[in-house]
């Protein structure tokens, strides 16, 4: 058995000190630059923070892959949703003519948009893939108003750090950071494959976040709010997903 030499003791001590100091510095930098996800709690917190921080550092401005038109899936799959509630059925009965999207929170001019209002903003299209956390996927063309145009229209304040969005279905809400909220491919989606967005795929209005898994693309959006903190929403974990056991950040 070799003795623990003085040199090894000193080296190990220095390495441990550097490690602890490094972690403390990393924590401060991460907080400063918004690299800590809201569900950084409990046993899975460190892994979640590493994933979110690493992906944010690498992918803040990268675009989701876009595909040629001939790769659009002939058989897209509309994942099942709970049966629509009464409020949704009333809108459906009149062809969604009364559908409103209210935008408030940290904005200069809280506004309520009708679907024609949204269509009057610049409308773009993208051919991107929907990937479900279960493993399946499909490619479709999505037509809609980039969320950034809506946020510009209402004058989102510079203090805003997250955008929270709610479905007409209760308890179905998500949030994204500003990197995704201002991202040119994050759409308030109104159409799919050259037609109106079918109800099964989230029509009349779905927020598509193509750089994250399908469950971040909430269907039947009625309300968006900009905020500097997610603490006051639900249980303070960022969205309904962590409350149901799923990660808030779904870029992986």
């Amino acid at each position, binding site marked *: 058995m070799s003795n623990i030499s003085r040199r090894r003791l000193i080296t190990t001590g220095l390495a441990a000190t550097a490690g602890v100091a490094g972690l403390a510095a990393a924590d401060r930098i991460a907080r400063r630059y918004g690299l800590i996800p809201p569900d950084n709690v409990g046993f899975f917190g460190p892994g979640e923070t*590493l994933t979110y921080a690493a*992906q944010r550092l690498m992918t803040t401005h990268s675009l989701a892959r876009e595909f040629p038109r001939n*790769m659009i899936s002939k058989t897209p799959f509309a994942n099942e949703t709970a049966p629509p509630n009464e409020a949704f059925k009333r809108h459906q009965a009149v062809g969604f003519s009364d559908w409103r999207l209210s935008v408030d929170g940290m904005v200069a001019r809280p506004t309520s948009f009708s679907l024609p209002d949204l269509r009057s903003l610049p409308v773009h299209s993208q051919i991107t893939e929907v*990937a479900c956390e279960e493993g399946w996927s499909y490619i479709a063309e999505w037509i809609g108003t980039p969320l950034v145009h809506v946020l510009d229209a209402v004058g989102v304040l510079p203090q805003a750090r997250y955008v929270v969005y709610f479905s007409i279905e209760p308890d179905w809400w998500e949030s994204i950071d500003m990197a995704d909220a201002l991202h040119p491919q994050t759409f308030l989606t109104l159409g799919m494959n050259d037609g109106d967005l079918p109800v099964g795929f989230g029509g009349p209005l779905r927020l598509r976040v193509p750089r994250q898994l399908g469950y971040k693309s909430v269907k039947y959006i009625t309300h968006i709010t900009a905020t500097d903190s997610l603490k006051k929403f639900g249980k303070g974990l960022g969205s309904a997903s962590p409350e149901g056991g799923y990660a808030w950040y779904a870029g*992986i």
Partner: protein
Amino acid sequence: MTHWITVIAFLALLVTGAEIVVSHPRFYWGEVGNIQTHPLFVLPIPASRDTVPTGYRFVMPDENGWSRYLHFEAAWVVVLTGLVYGLASLWSGHFRKDLLPAPADWNWRSFREVFASYLRRAPPDKSDGYSYNVVQRTAYLAVIVVLFPLVIWTGLAMSPAFEGAFPWAVAVLGGRQSARTLHFFISGFLLLFLVVHVTMVVLAGFRSRMRAMITGHTASSPSNPRSTHEQHLTT
């Protein structure tokens, strides 16, 4: 140390990976795949989601949430531990001395001789106590420099944000669903290695091998080259 951390994290990855597969036990080739497209193959197991047609009349409990959290956390542990191990092994010469097969051994005859001695259940050489033979070296190197990097790559190729930043890393694999299928098979190879590896350790004498792995010393060779090497390094 890095070995045992990797063992724990790898077992966590296996269990949670299997759990994630259960939510959609169908595999595809190419970019896209869902229950309305033709599968490459289907695992004959029930699913944890009722949207997947499996032929079973029941649905398994859905444990994807914590499985995904733990899968990625354990993946970080493997990646960071692997980096420490890789750098330390390059630095200390562990790769060169203990893992790279000697050029003279790098031929079919040496492989055949090792397998023949395994099949004869020949008593191990004195040297086998503290040095790896050519088959062991090849298997360990394949796991460390081929299978682990591949399983990490194919795993990342399923991340929508990673795909956007590094589209070529998905394209060369043949698409997102191909990456998922490859991820499944590479995990299978790693599981196969695990089974063979543990079997060999048991055959070689579980207690003495464990003692050697934990303390770094073998009982039969008081002056084995590895411990003198370590003493040399520390003094």
